[in-house]
């Protein structure tokens, strides 16, 4: 009963793990338990900003289950990403991430200012 609920697809398949902080890790699943603790081999983090993406290699990861949102197996016969997405360099994606982060922080502070003014 428990085993059927556990992720038991074969090791050769590549999987994607979504974490609570929004990160997306891709790699080969080596270990998994009912708490969703996992060991991933050959991990890379897929960073997506708008239409741009980049895969950053990370190696071997042990993930504590409480951080896991979802574990999905990637169907090799299908496109991993929509065709309009563009792969860019690591420096470029980090720059794009910074811009996005600053934009959302700015939105956050403007909102706080509006709330302070207590508009009806």
């Amino acid at each position: 009963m428990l085993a059927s609920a556990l992720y038991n697809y074969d090791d050769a398949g590549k999987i994607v793990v979504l974490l609570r902080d929004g990160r997306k890790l891709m790699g080969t699943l080596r270990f998994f338990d009912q708490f969703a603790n996992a060991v991933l081999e050959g991990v890379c983090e897929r960073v997506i900003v708008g239409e741009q993406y980049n895969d950053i290699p990370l190696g071997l990861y042990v993930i504590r289950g409480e951080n896991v949102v979802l574990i999905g197996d990637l169907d090799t016969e299908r496109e991993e990403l929509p065709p309009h997405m563009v792969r860019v360099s690591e420096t470029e994606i980090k720059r794009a991430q910074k811009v996005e982060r600053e934009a959302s922080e700015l939105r956050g502070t403007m909102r706080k200012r509006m709330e302070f003014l207590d508009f009806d």
Partner: protein
Amino acid sequence: MLFFSYFKDLVGQEVTVELKNDLAIRGTLHSVDQYLNIKLENTRVVDQDKFPHMLSVRNCFIRGSVVRYVQLPPDGVDVDLLHDAARREARGG
């Protein structure tokens, strides 16, 4: 225990699981465990444009603690039966 048994009876049905990060996934309920971890098959994401990384995911394991809602087909639920069971569980629990 009640909802674990309840979900076990729903295996095979089409459900939509909405997560706390607002991701909503539609699929066939494959299995569930005591933590209400959910395994879905034949999945597709509701708002595909917002979550491009999920495009080729067809089967997934969802940790129970991140689920906000499990949307069920309205005729797939016997509400009165569930209501009675919940009342009994609350009394005896």
